[in-house]
């Protein structure tokens, strides 16, 4: 099918509605936030229009730098864990009979319907000393006595991986289903065991998909602010938690806006860097 370039303004008609929605619900609020980030804060919860950099200056401290670093590290770890878990799982899923695949996908989708709050409290119960999974290990004789696994970094990580895993599987699934199955078979006829073929054929052949999935999960995990609070200690709180804290409890809108803008810029910068490295690797 040949696509013709739009001839008149009317040809762009179908774009008007989404463009309008995007403008009203994304561009305008985002612009407002950028503007607010330069406003002057008034004691007592208000702010006046101004053009000051004090909000950004305040952000450039060791404390906030540390939180930003931790947030990025957490998001990267969640993304890597999700892809490492989801890739073999989704590959095996794509080899199952159609009916079983549907059952698995429906189960995964149902996890998506759980709210972050429920996921958080469910895991905090599972990680607790009194009713947690360590009690099962004690019953099995694998542990001496039940311990609390939460709050801890591991608990935050587990909760966030649990939350992001269904997304990861759903993003990887179409690519794996479409992957030519004879590639893996060819690797086997050429002397590669199935496990080796997975690593030296399937993973490199799906490089771009894996990269895109990593970025998606990374950004998804960056926005998480409930799970770190429910399952972590204050040192495990992400920048999103601090933004919420400033915006809602400290009523410091300009500073919250400045942090949000900063987070967006850093995220965009990292994604661009990743894509750049990916492109270079492709040429080599």
């Amino acid at each position: 099918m040949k696509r013709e370039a739009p001839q008149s303004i009317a040809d762009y008609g179908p774009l008007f509605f989404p463009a309008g929605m995007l403008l009203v619900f994304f561009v305008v609020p985002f612009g407002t936030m950028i503007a607010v980030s330069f406003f002057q804060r008034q004691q007592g919860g208000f702010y006046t229009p101004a053009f000051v950099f004090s909000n950004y200056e305040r952000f450039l401290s060791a404390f906030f730098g540390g939180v930003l670093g931790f947030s990025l590290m957490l998001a990267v770890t969640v993304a890597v864990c999700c892809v490492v878990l989801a890739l073999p799982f989704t590959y095996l899923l794509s080899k199952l009979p159609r009916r079983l695949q549907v059952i698995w996908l429906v189960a995964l989708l149902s996890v998506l319907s759980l709210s972050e709050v429920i996921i958080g409290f469910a895991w905090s119960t599972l990680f607790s000393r009194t009713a947690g999974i360590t009690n099962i290990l004690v019953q099995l004789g694998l542990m001496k006595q039940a311990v609390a696994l939460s709050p801890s970094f591991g608990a935050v990580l587990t909760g966030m991986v649990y939350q992001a895993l269904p997304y990861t599987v759903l993003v990887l699934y179409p690519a794996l289903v479409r992957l030519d199955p004879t590639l893996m078979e060819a690797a086997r006829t050429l002397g590669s065991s199935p496990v080796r073929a997975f690593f030296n054929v399937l993973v490199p052949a799906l490089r771009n998909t894996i990269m895109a999935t990593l970025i998606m999960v990374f950004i998804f995990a960056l926005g998480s602010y409930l799970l770190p609070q429910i399952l972590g200690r204050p040192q495990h709180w992400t920048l999103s938690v601090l933004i919420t804290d400033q915006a809602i409890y400290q009523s410091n809108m300009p500073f919250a806006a400045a942090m949000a803008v900063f987070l967006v810029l850093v995220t965009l910068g990292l994604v661009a860097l990743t894509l750049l490295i990916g492109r270079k690797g492709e040429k080599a």
Partner: protein
Amino acid sequence: MSGLVLNGVTKQFGTFTAVENVQLSVPHGTFVCMLGPSGCGKTTLLRMIAGLDDPTGGTILLDGEDITKVPTHKRNLGMVFQSLALFPHLSVGENIAYPLRIRGKGREDQKKRVDELLALIHLPGYGDRPVSKLSGGQRQRVAIARALALSPKLFLLDEPLSALDAKLREAMQVELRQLQQKLGITTIVVTHDQREAMTMADTVVVMNGGHIRQAASPIEIYRKPADTFVADFIGSTNLIETTADSSGAATVFGHSVPGLVLPAGLQKATISVRPEDVHLTAPGNGAINGTVTFVRDLGGTIETFVEAGGKQIVAVSTPRARPEVTAGQQVGIVLAPDVCVVLKQ
């Protein structure tokens, strides 16, 4: 014995039997073409030889060793897939070197072997190109080189030339055959193209419905088809019902054909006569009489459609070897007894 032996190989998918009780022995260094319509089980049989599908019954022996349960990557075979399955993330050279790398061959050995193979497939100096920049025929050659990199005992090809255009396909058939003869490797090709099978094979295995209908040299398959399926599937043919009297002398459409005798005890049989073996003469003189219904003049050959005894008979001949007839004319059909093949019922 050396070579490949299939012993009662069977494959069932649920209640459907794709391959049933196949017996075949392929001596070392033979070129075998498995030929049949789609769904006849030929690809399933090849996949079982490769170890990609497990047989539900029977055994597969390679050089006397039972490999039925040996996983694919330990079978020492090379396979070319219909999709070619070249690795998109590797260059031409890396694709060919893949099996060498897997076996832990040194970098120098890899390079030497890749250069050797690139020369063999007439693509020297192509090692650094990405696979996506190659033409269909070149990809084909790279897939062949990759499959041959480890000098396997068995070379398997699944519809290897079906993606190429007709002219290139004919050229590749000849090239593949010459390559196989040069290397002396036992080769099995699955195809649905009988020209391909006739061009390349030492032995053509005609399959239908999960069974081997006939396994013989191309010329024998053509001249002496075993049954109606093979006769009809390989080339075009006239299938004619005959009846025999008590002495076995056969008659066709009520005319006796001198010299044609059915095997003892057979009252009725179907015979196969190739169109080029049907001779047309003037009516009468003991010939079978018929009416010309259509003449297809192709320049080099002429096909004459004749209706005789309610059946349509096709005769093919060169323009000079046939009487001038047009549609509606009466002609005589002469069948020499030695060209009539009596088919199994």
